[in-house]
């Protein structure tokens, strides 16, 4: 299998892996959002879902490990490619100006994917700290609410999301998630060679729509929790 490793370690090969891991992470986002939208759906829906999720700890462990692996690979590729790209320029220009027609070329998200990615990584740390590690017992009330259960309950979710720091952090996280996905999704298709005049605008606007819907969905959950 050395041939595969060789081919995948080229710049084009790394971009394949970047695209595949990125799209897999998008799949995770869809599943995660679907679960979270059970919160505003009301009733015991969310609690039941969380309990079911944790009923089979073995399976959950496998899924979490897989997700972690995909995430680490995505992260490693991002840093390794960025490092190579910065080195490839060497001395920079005194002036740069885009020749693309679209406005806001300087602020377009495709120019700072590594930036939005790093912010998302920080957001993810906050998020895991909040829900997976229950703030390491720093928040007495939360620790009491969470109890022994691994599953996040509606009460825990509301408690966490209502704290001011979390509110700001999460809202910022969702904005940067939108920025990252607005380029990432369509870019992944191009990296995989999936480009065709009949489908290109679907890929471009579909990617934007996907980014908007995911970000909006998480905002809905956040606002719902704040209003509780």
């Amino acid at each position: 299998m050395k041939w595969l490793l060789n081919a995948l370690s080229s710049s084009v090969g790394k971009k394949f892996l970047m695209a595949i891991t990125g799209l897999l992470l998008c799949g995770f986002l869809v599943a995660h959002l679907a679960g979270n939208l059970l919160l505003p759906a009301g009733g015991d829906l969310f609690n039941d879902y969380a309990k079911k999720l944790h009923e089979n700890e073995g399976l959950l462990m496998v899924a979490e490990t897989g997700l972690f692996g995909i995430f680490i690979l995505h992260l490693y590729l991002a840093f390794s490619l960025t490092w190579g790209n910065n080195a490839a320029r060497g001395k920079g220009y005194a002036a740069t100006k885009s020749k693309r027609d679209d406005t806001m070329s300087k602020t377009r998200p495709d120019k700072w994917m590594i930036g939005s990615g790093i912010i998302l990584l920080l957001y993810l740390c906050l998020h895991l700290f909040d829900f997976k590690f229950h703030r390491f017992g720093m928040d007495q009330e939360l620790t009491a609410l969470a109890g022994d259960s691994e599953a996040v309950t509606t009460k825990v979710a509301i408690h966490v999301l209502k704290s001011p720091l979390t509110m700001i952090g999460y809202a910022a996280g969702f904005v940067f998630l939108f920025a990252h996905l607005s380029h990432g999704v369509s870019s992944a298709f191009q990296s995989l060679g999936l480009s065709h005049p009949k489908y290109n605008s679907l890929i471009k606007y579909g990617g934007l729509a996907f980014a908007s819907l995911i970000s909006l969905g998480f905002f809905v959950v956040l606002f719902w929790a704040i209003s509780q």
Partner: protein
Amino acid sequence: MSGQGMELKLQIWRQANAEDKGRFHIYHLSDVSPHMSFLEMLDVLNEQLITLGEEPVAFDHDCREGICGMCSLMINGQAHGPDKETTTCQLHMRRFSDGDTIVIEPWRAKAFPVIRDLVVDRGSFDRIMSKGGFVSVNTGNPADANTILVPKQDADRAMDAAACIGCGACVAACKNASALLFVSAKVSQLSLLPQGKPEKAQRVLNMVAQMDEEGFGSCTNTSECEAACPAGISVSNIARLNRDYMCAMLCSEEGM
């Protein structure tokens, strides 16, 4: 024309040789005719510098009609200046106004080292080409034009890719100094045609390997290359290269 020309402030990168650190020099040029091409404007500057006993500014050029790909200037931060699908030699001074400051820099990339002033060494492109940018089957005497039938659409697409003049504007404009637009055009122009198909897999693998070896960056799909390309090469060629690379990697016997 005298008295009607433009006054320009030129901020030009001067570097004695590859080892020199280099710096910007400011030159004031007056009475610049709007009908001049950009390179003619530099010719006028150089005449004045020679008269003053100074070193003229070195810059690359050859055909001066947009076909050879030798001219290569970063003008006010844009590869080949402000016009779309135009080389520096075809750019006219009427695109600028009286009193303008024009910043002129060489292409910047590790794989394009500056040799002198605005001249860079684009030998890395030649080395990429030498790894497969050709068809190596012996074709013998010219065959009848219709012996090998090529669908019109494929011929057109191959022709569009073959419009690449290898100037390096794609590398210069890309924030990652990636050469993927160039490589993809060179791969596409052959892989689309029956004559190029037999070596399709090894061509794409070898040319990409050489591209990495030369120290070009990777493509992050920002499409700056397409916007800067004087030959109008489309990023759809990059998608085709990605497909070809994937097929070569997974389905061919190359690279084993």
